[in-house]
């Protein structure tokens, strides 16, 4: 059977997914991703919890974030929300074997995520130009750390999405083999959800 020989051909080496993914493997893989996302929630909860404690214990002078540009951040929020939409559209497209549409939507997701990072870069650089750094006060310690780690997660997601875009155009995915895309979608939704928490906490409240 092709399964056994496919595995024999790639004995011992990290394998290529050239076969259809069984329902079991699909479900197992998704469970793994959900568990990983649970750990990511705990990570950001640690940071957000620290923010809450520091803010409740700090005075207005010490905990001052009034310089932040919430309008730019609102644009970022819309961008990420839209990117989650395009991600979901990509997944529904690949489940219908619509490679073309799936590729377009992944491209849009990457673009919107890129917009997010560009705006973030603008925010960071204007702050540094005004000599606002992570050490300026403890609010900025939180701000740079939390948005920084969130940004790292966005970047990692974009890199994976870039690889997926190349591979989907190479015809490696179909309605029988789209687990990686769905799992990446789950990850991307988490990145979005984390930002939905960070935006009001840092910029609005």
């Amino acid at each position, binding site marked *: *059977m092709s*399964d*056994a020989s496919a*595995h*024999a051909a790639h*004995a*011992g*080496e*990290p394998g290529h997914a050239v076969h259809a993914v*069984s329902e*079991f*493997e699909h*479900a*197992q893989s998704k*469970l*793994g991703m959900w*568990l*990983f996302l*649970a*750990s*990511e*929630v*705990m*990570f*950001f*909860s*640690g*940071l957000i*919890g*620290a923010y809450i*404690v*520091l803010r409740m*214990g*700090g005075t207005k002078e*010490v*905990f001052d974030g009034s310089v932040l540009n919430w309008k730019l951040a609102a644009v970022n929020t819309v961008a990420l929300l839209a990117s989650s939409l395009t991600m979901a559209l990509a997944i529904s497209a690949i489940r219908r074997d619509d490679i073309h549409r799936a590729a377009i939507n992944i491209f849009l997701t990457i673009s919107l995520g890129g917009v997010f990072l560009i705006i973030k870069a603008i925010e960071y650089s204007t702050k540094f130009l005004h000599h606002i*750094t*992570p*050490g*300026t*006060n*403890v*609010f*900025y*310690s*939180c701000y*740079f*750390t939390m948005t920084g*780690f969130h940004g790292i997660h966005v970047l990692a997601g974009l890199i994976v999405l870039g690889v997926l875009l190349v591979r989907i155009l190479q015809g490696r995915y179909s309605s029988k083999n789209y687990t990686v895309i769905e799992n990446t979608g789950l990850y991307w939704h988490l990145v979005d959800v984390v930002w939905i928490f960070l935006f009001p906490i840092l910029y609005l409240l």
Partner: protein
Amino acid sequence: MSQEHHDDDGRGGHIHQEPTSFFWKYVLSIDHKMIGKQYLFTAMFFLLFGGMMALMMRWQIAYPSQPVPVLGALLKPLAAEQLEAKYPDAKTRPKPAKNTIFTADTLKDGKVVIQGGAIAPEGYTKLVTMHGSMMIFFVIIPILVGAFGNFLIPLHIGARDVAFPILNALSYWLFFIASVLILGAFFLEAGTAAAGWTSYPPLSALSEMDPASSSGGAIWVLSLFFIGFSSIVTGVNFLATIVTMRAPGMTWTRLPLVTWSQFITAVFQTLATPVLAAALMMLFMDQVAGTNFFIPAGIHTTADEPLSRAGGGHPLLWQHVFWFYSHPAVYILILPGMGIASDLLSTFARKPIFGYKAMVASMCGIMFLGFVVWGHHMFLSGIGAGMGKFFMTTTMLIALPSAIKVFNWLATMYGGSLSWRSPGLWAYSFIAMFTIGGLSGIFMAATPVDIPMHDTYYIVAHFHYVVFGGTLMAVFGGLTFWFPKFFGRMMSEFWAKVHWAFTFVAFNLTFFPMHLLGEGGHMRRIGSAVEKYEFLQPLQGMNVFITHAAILLGFSQLIFLANFFYSMFYGPKAEANPWRSNTLEWTTASPVPYHNYDRIPIVQHGPYEYNAAPETTGSDWQPQDRQTNAAKKG
């Protein structure tokens, strides 16, 4: 055909061909058994390294400022005059080392008047920090989870590997990177971190307070970050494996307690470790990026001027976030050991575990309660009486499930046919030592009692009793027990018993007196307490005694090492089931073949059917994949 490989619709995992090249077989293996061995050997190295550091600490306590034998002469740095003599050319001469573990010789007129090689004051705190960090993160967790978890979980559930074998290999190599980092810190100019394994800021965050904070301390943080990442990936892997890959008939109530304990441990690893990652990242930012998460405003060192940090942070924040992980971490340190002890006990008492469901429920209780007791590490940190009451209550509560387990182990032994073979000896001594450690824990759980006991040797005695007397003894038993599965041979039973006897006696001689030291007010993490505090001088005799016992304990481990490595190559070849044990791994060959099982087993009953129905089965044991005759008869 695929039929013979997928008789379980693929849930047990596919049969891969075994790799033939050395690299893919031994180095970048994705086989859970090989990865388990990689973890085991790396962790054993750190056990020796960490143990050596403990002996150096004990030497300093018993013989302050005396050169450490052998190591001191080998590792002491050169004094300024000696460097001049060795490197006459000032351009190529290295600077005199500072912040090292050992003192250099003191010379006068070119002659050595005071021998170097003693433990330097700042060296002692570096040893304390590294000993604790290494033992917890680089020895116990990797052995329990990385070695035993990896090796046994697929075998116990009747699968061919874990859910995500490539991620499994990634976990090990993240651990390896962390190992390189933490060893590398010893070579930094300012040396390793020196703020204890608990790394409380501001000391651990500010290089103005400890020169190593922004170098050795930062490396410590990164190392733990990598090892935490490794832990999280493993946790996800094990949870997915146990949930999805159990063989047909392996229901949750038929899982061996080893597997249950690994499952609960994996929950802690997946959900608690990320909070440590958050804490570590905030500390790292404080160390290198000038943030002030844990630095209050206006903080001074010894200088008159306050440091030019904006401040606004709070040291207590670190303690909360750190202990939110590190308390569940101690349950990671004990639960797999409890699982191993249960399996060993049942096998060597030839009796089913008493109260299997209560054992599982207790572990689940520990899992829930374990997340809400962390404040008992902070009773003296200024958390206030209200919080103190809450944590005292939850901490007292968590003693209940542990006690239930101890009673069930004792009930398992009662009326059993106790074997004196070495894995059994380790299991029995586990119960006794864990009980003693648990009892001292109850004292500490009571906040008023903790007030004089905190940061004394009473605490040191407590955790060494549960982690060494408990977990490490279970580990030694488990290594002896599963040695045939790992390596296809048997360890020498005689030398295993000798090792057990020496370890058991020397362990108690070393750590029991520490309860008394603590009650006498002897504080922790200090290499010359008796020299500084007159009221402790009557305790110095006990300190010297403990050091001698510790040296005996340390050297006794060489017996185990010799037995372990000799038997690996020259021990008598083992049969499939030398211990007549019931769990699934004993139904396959010794050592376990690459694909684990020729056919995925179909599980018929629970793992502890010893002497359950000897008249009908004809033997005192029943492998999990055999129907009992009673069941066959219908």
